[in-house]
């Protein structure tokens, strides 16, 4: 079986090389047949990598411990659910997973556009094939997951030496979210390849018009959405598994995933300047380039051990490959830009400081500042060692000092920006649009302060959050009222109608509202409480409104782990409200201990209880309880962001109907493709 996987992987590499070479030959010689065969090779990569991934999964499920990768990351007692996820738990597998998701994207891009953009797509195919060649090189020749345990004898015959049982999956990863978190984050990372390919293709091929920007925008939204989900799931995993009561620590690995998200966000906003006003073309192209490069840089940082040396992650030479690849990308981008710079000339100038344009400019300015600060802070140990010889790391205070004001400024822009007119907004219009929401925000701030919500930044965040929510609400209300009075429907139906008529605009508002919820959740952070105590049966801990009574300590075990478990009864105002069972587990295969946090999540606060370990002096269990306010808002906000993005990706209702009538007699496949460009071109004129 492993031979099948390894062979498929090698064929995939060859197919990608063919797609690259034949693609270039097709562009140079202008032979459609060559171009088509390059495209088919590009699509074939997907099926070949699929075979490799399927083979590796099969080997995991059949406990084939003759394969080094399976033996390292799985064991017989591991639940099937986690055997599936074990695929991407190590370096070889996660790089294979990268290739797989990338080839999936590439397949869809090539397939959906196979009859469209004949001048653009050959370039896109070549660029995506180039990226695939890099990852498939790693898969095949540097970090191959199909490595067999065994040795060669003198005659050159391999003797396979299977081990009886594997070393097991890292217990930190044995959590149900770990099954979906890496795919989501990787779908984000790999997804940014597609906008990169389109932007570079348009620049290299001097593709006329702005159509590529609409395609790029949609693919960026898809990648951005996955990246958002991936980041939030990662934060939730850190919260629920690591047992330290927090969800974000400005760790290099977290920062690496945040960087492309930030530049992607900046692009999704500044791209509107190009669509509507023909401005910022150079900026946009470079934002797309930089986003992709940050994805590669992030992978480099987490793989190379350059940064994590302080964090005691292991070193690996694979980082150099990423560095070389990054250098090549940068060189290609600079070459394409300097060759075709004139193609990106701006059509318009900034007219007024109080305008939609300038709100986008400020949005981009501070997003880039945030990106720079996070990058700088993450790389600081390396930079300081280069310049001073001392390795200096910076901690959360650095990141928070810079990013909290930026985040609040962005929140303000979220409320103000969408309501400003293009070119110039009058003072009158400002007053009309913002007086009420601002008053509402301040009122909410006063009420909250009276109830003890007294922290400077958190209070500002709350005021702005309410302000933004009210401006969004008023936008929906005003639009819906017009429709309701004209069609004679009720307001709620009208809201639905309004949203579906301009999904991009109202989807955007919903995403903004989701971000408001995330921000409010983060604003709860300063009000966190915690207490730690050694406990015997019958002892109590008091935290906030809760009193936790220790009922029992016992042990549970299965084939996978043994656990010390506490049975805790929680009282609120003297009444018993729930039972919590935090555990301290010893995973047998890997001999690693982990805590299993018990979280009781209410809308306004989480009670978070950790079985922290046993006191070395007395042998009594140590229980650590946290009261984390508003954390649930963050996860809920994430769901709203996803729904908003899904909505914004949907075609507009009225236009879709009109187009269907035209398209039906023609060709069916256009139906799917329709969703991508023409509608968004037209829709963009509506908002």
């Amino acid at each position, binding site marked *: 079986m492993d031979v099948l996987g390894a062979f498929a992987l090698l064929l995939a590499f060859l197919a990608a090389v063919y797609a690259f070479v034949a693609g270039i030959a097709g562009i140079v010689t202008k032979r459609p047949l060559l171009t088509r065969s390059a495209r088919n090779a590009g699509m074939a990569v997907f099926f070949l990598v699929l075979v490799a991934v399927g083979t590796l999964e099969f080997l995991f499920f059949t406990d084939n411990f003759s394969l080094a990768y399976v033996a390292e990351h799985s064991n017989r007692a591991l639940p099937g659910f986690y055997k599936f996820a074990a695929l991407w738990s*190590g370096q070889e597998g996660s790089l294979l997973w990268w290739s797989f998701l990338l080839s999936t994207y590439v397949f869809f891009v090539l397939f959906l556009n196979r009859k469209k953009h004949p001048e653009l797509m050959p370039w896109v195919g070549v660029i995506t094939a180039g990226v695939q060649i890099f990852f498939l090189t790693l898969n095949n020749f540097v970090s191959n997951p199909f490595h067999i345990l065994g040795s060669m004898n003198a005659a050159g015959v391999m003797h396979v030496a299977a081990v009886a049982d594997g070393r097991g999956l890292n217990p930190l990863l044995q959590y149900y979210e770990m099954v979906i978190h890496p795919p989501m984050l990787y779908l984000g990372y790999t997804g940014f390849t597609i906008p990169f390919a389109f932007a570079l293709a348009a620049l290299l091929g001097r593709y006329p018009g702005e159509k590529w920007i609409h395609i790029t925008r949609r693919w960026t939204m898809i990648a951005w959405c996955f990246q958002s989900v991936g980041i939030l799931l990662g934060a939730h995993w850190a919260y629920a598994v690591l047992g*330290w009561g927090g969800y974000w620590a400005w760790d290099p690995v*977290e920062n690496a995933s945040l960087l492309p998200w930030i530049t992607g966000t900046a692009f999704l906003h500044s791209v509107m300047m190009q669509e509507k006003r023909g401005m910022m073309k150079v900026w946009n192209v470079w934002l797309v380039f930089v986003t992709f490069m940050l994805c590669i840089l992030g992978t480099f940082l987490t793989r190379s051990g350059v940064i994590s040396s302080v964090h005691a*992650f292991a070193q690996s030479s694979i980082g150099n490959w990423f560095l070389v690849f990054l250098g090549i990308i940068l060189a290609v981008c600079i070459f394409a830009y300097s060759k075709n710079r004139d193609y990106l000339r701006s059509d318009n100038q*900034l007219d007024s400081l109080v305008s939609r344009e300038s709100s986008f400019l400020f949005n981009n300015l501070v997003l880039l*500042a945030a990106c720079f600060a996070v990058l700088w802070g993450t790389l600081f140990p390396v930079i300081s060692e280069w310049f001073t010889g001392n*390795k200096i*790391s910076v901690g959360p205070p650095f990141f928070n000092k810079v990013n909290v004001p930026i985040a609040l400024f962005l929140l303000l822009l979220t409320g103000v920006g969408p309501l400003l007119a293009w070119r110039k907004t009058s003072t009158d219009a400002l007053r009309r649009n913002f007086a009420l929401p601002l008053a509402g925000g301040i009122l909410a701030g006063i009420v909250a302060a009276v109830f003890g919500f007294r922290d400077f930044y958190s209070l500002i965040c709350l005021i702005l959050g309410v302000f933004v929510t009210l401006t969004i609400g008023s936008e929906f209300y005003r639009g819906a009222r017009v429709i309701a009075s004209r069609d004679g429907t009720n307001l709620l139906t009208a809201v639905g109608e309004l949203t579906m008529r301009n999904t991009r605009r109202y989807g955007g508002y919903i995403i903004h509202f989701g971000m408001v919820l995330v921000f409010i959740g983060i604003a709860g952070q300063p009000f966190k409480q915690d207490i*730690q105590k050694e406990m015997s049966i019958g002892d109590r801990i008091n935290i906030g409104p809760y009193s936790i009574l220790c009922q029992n300590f016992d042990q549970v075990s299965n084939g996978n782990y043994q656990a010390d478990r506490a049975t805790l009864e929680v009282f609120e105002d003297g009444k018993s409200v729930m039972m919590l069972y935090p555990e301290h587990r010893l995973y047998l295969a890997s001999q690693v201990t982990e805590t299993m946090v018990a979280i009781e999540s209410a809308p306004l606060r989480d009670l978070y209880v950790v079985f922290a*370990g046993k006191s070395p002096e007395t042998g009594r269990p140590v229980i650590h309880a946290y009261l984390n306010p508003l954390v649930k808002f963050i996860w809920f906000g994430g769901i709203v962001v996803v729904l908003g993005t899904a909505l914004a990706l949907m075609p507009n209702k009225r236009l879709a109907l009109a187009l269907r009538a035209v398209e039906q007699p023609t060709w069916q496949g256009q139906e799917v493709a329709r969703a991508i460009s023409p509608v968004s071109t037209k829709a963009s004129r509506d908002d």
Partner: protein
Amino acid sequence: MKANTKFVVGSAIILVTLTLLAYVGYTQSKTYYHTISELSKLPASQLHQRMRVSGNVEDGSIQHLESSVNFVLVEQGKQLPVSYVGRDPLPDTFKDGAQALVEGRLMPDGRFSADQVQSKCASKYQATPGSAGAMPSGQSHNLTAEPAGPAS
């Protein structure tokens, strides 16, 4: 003033403010990373800054006291006495011979006062608060890249 000029002025104000904030944050949180042998060569001005030091826990050196846990870190034959004064229980991987990373300050008596201890046994790495990443690959990476050593 033209809109462009106004925008440039506005941007400059924002960027200068952010730079100042970054500087304040930097001075509050910068942490030096030193090896034990480097400590004896440090100039006095740098000696009592917040820093991270790594080494192996000397066998039999762990003492649990009333208010702290004392142990000795060894690296390349050099020793560093450490008092752990943090609130969190020490990670389970913290035992004789384990690799440990301590964060804190060097006291005038030459003893290192640590408020954070991270440790790692032969092949695994255990996270204490805030040290682990959100992406699993970094974590699992240790498992892959290091040869199977003796279980700690």
